[in-house]
C-alpha cells in the first residue's frame, strides 16, 4: 500500500511553504509514493473556536496519511494523531512542502 505523507501548507503545491501551525494551517498537501499530490483546504479551521487541531487530525487520517510533517503540533492534536496511528515530525516550518517531503524521505532511507 502506498504511504501517504501529509504536510501542513500555506498553499496547494510542493513549492508552497510549510505552514508552521497544524490545526489552523491554511491546508494540507498529501503526497504519495508516486509523487502525486492532493490538497485538503483547511480554511474552515479559522472559524472554529475549539478543536481545530483535533478536526485537522481526523481529516488527515481520513485521507489515508500515516505521516504528518508540520511546524508545531499541539497536545490535543498530538493525542488525536497518535490514536489514528499518524507519525508526527515537527520543526519543518522553514522549508517548502517539497523540501520537507524530500528531507523526511532522505531520513527514512538513511
Amino acid at each position: 500500500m502506498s504511504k501517504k505523507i501529509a504536510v501542513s501548507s500555506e498553499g496547494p503545491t510542493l513549492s508552497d511553504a510549510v505552514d508552521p501551525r497544524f490545526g489552523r494551517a491554511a491546508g494540507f498537501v498529501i503526497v504519495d509514493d508516486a509523487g502525486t499530490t492532493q490538497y485538503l483546504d483547511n480554511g474552515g479551521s479559522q472559524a472554529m473556536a475549539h478543536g481545530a487541531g483535533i478536526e485537522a487530525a481526523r481529516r488527515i487520517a481520513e485521507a489515508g496519511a500515516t505521516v504528518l510533517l508540520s511546524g508545531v503540533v499541539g497536545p490535543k492534536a498530538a493525542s488525536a494523531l497518535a490514536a489514528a496511528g499518524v507519525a508526527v515530525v515537527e520543526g519543518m516550518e522553514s522549508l517548502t512542502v517539497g523540501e520537507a517531503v524530500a528531507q523526511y524521505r532522505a531520513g527514512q532511507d538513511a
Partner: protein
Amino acid sequence: MLVAIASGKGGTGKTTVAAALAAVWGQALLRPLTVVDLDVEEPNLHLFLRPVIRRAETACLEIPVVADPAACSDCGACRELCQFGAITVMAGKPLVFPEMCHGCGGCLAVCPTGSLTAGSRELGRIEEGTTGLADYLAGRLRIGESQSPPLIRAVLRRLAAVADPEGDVILDAPPGVSCPAMTSVAAADVIVLVAEPTPFGIHDFLLAVEAFTPLGKPMAVVVNRSSDGTPQLLDLCREHGLPVLAAIADDRAVAETYARGGLLPDVGAHYRAVCHELARSITVFAGETAHA
C-alpha cells in the same frame, strides 16, 4: 432577596462591598444573610470574613468516558453533535478530550452503541460555613480547570438547597462581563454595580451596564474611590437611569484597613453608617422595583 455585587472592571471593590454588607446586614435589617463567593477563579471573601468551614464537597461535571472502544460503530454521531470538539472518532474508536467537554451529555444520548458511559471531571470545591454574622458559601475552582460557569452553577444549586428562605443573599460575583459574570448576575434579583471613577473604571462600567441591562433586573450603583471623576460617573448613571446607592471616598484609611484584611465598617463611624445605609437602600430599591 438575592443581591449580586458585580463590576465591569476587576479590583473596583466588589469584595470590599460584599464583605461590608455581610458584616452589617443582620444588625441593619434584622434579617438572616447568606454571603456567597462566586468568584471561583480567585475567591477572596474568606480573607476578610474569616469563616469557619463546616462542610466541603467536591463538585463534578458529567463527561463521557470510553467504556468499550470495540463497541464503537464509527458512525461519528458524537463528533457531529459536539460543538466543542471534545469528542471525535479515530481509527474506529471514540477519543474524548475531557478538559474541553461542557457536560451537556449529548454524546451519551446519541451514541447508538454502548461504547460511551458517564464519567466525571472535578470542577472544584464548594465550602460552607459561617462568619459568625452570616452563613457563608463559596466555590473554589480546581487548578487547571478552564471553565468556571459549571462550578458557579453548582454553588448556586447548593445555595438553593441550604439558604434560609426568609433570609437574603449577597453574591460576590466574578469581575467582567463574560460567562462567569453573566452566570452569577443572572441568578440575582438585584444587581449592584461597583464602579470607580477612573477612565478604565468608567469604560468597563459601561460594558457591564450594556451586558447586564438585557437581563431586565433592577440595577443600581455603588461608587468606590470617589474622586475628581465622580461627576462624570454620576452623569452616566443618570443617563442610564441607574440610582447611586452609596459613594465610598478615595480615602487612605479605607485602603489601610483593607490591606490589613479589615472591613469597611471598621474604618470608622462614618463608614459604618455608610454601610448600614447601603444595606437599607438596597432593600428599599429592591422593594420599589419589585412593585414598580
